[in-house]
């Protein structure tokens, strides 16, 4: 068992945990905007961690540089997609769930 394998396994397990919580949030949270909180953040960081783990596992080559570029693109694109769709919902006057109106979806 090499050191890089251990690092890779740790990164992967962490990212899997984050993916699980993001999915749980997607299922459990009450309305659309709060669900976006779960997916928009959790998936981005989880993807970053798994990409880092794979880059460590693969070693220092051009391919791992490409993997890091995927991470850069994800970090640019994922928040923008989240923002675009939440803005569409906001402009369409989708009512956000609040504690006062609790219970109704």
């Amino acid at each position, binding site marked *: 068992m090499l050191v890089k394998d251990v690092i890779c396994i740790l990164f992967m397990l962490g990212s899997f945990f984050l993916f699980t919580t993001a999915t749980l949030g997607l299922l459990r949270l009450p309305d659309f905007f709060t669900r976006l909180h779960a997916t928009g953040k959790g998936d981005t960081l989880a993807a970053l961690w798994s990409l880092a783990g794979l880059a460590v596992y693969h070693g220092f080559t051009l391919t791992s540089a490409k993997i890091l570029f995927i991470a850069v693109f994800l970090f*640019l*694109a994922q928040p923008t997609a989240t*923002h675009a769709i939440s803005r569409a919902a906001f402009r369409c006057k989708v009512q956000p769930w609040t504690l006062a109106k609790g219970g109704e979806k």
Partner: protein
Amino acid sequence: MIRDSQDVIVKTLSRLLVPFMVIYALYVIMHGHHSPGGGFQGGVILAAGFVLLVVSHGLEQTRKRLSEKAAGVLSSIGVFIYAGIGALCLILGGNYLDYGKLSKLLPVVPAEARSLGILGVEIGVALAVMAVMFTIFLVIFTVGEFQEDDRSEK
């Protein structure tokens, strides 16, 4: 949909992302020999870059780079490149699309000539696919827009 987006974030992000998307598409086209990909996939990604430009920056900004007329001409040129390479092989004394005969024109061995012929064909396919996809997108999204313009004029 053809008008430019009012959103600063989407606009800026697509401004930063479109050149990389286009260079990636060109990479996919040119490196069909060594990695997955080729003319069709690269052409589609190229068209996607232009679509993103239309959606974020509007039709006017895109027309400066690739107008509808140019897209129509490019789609014909793509098919022409493909068929023209085949016909060139026919003229040089081989069968249709037998790229090995291109080595009479180029200073390489026949195997290399076939590789180059494949590259030329891929470029033709990519141009045709890109232009056709972009044209279909524009045609679908402008059909209703012009009707609205008519109504507003009356």
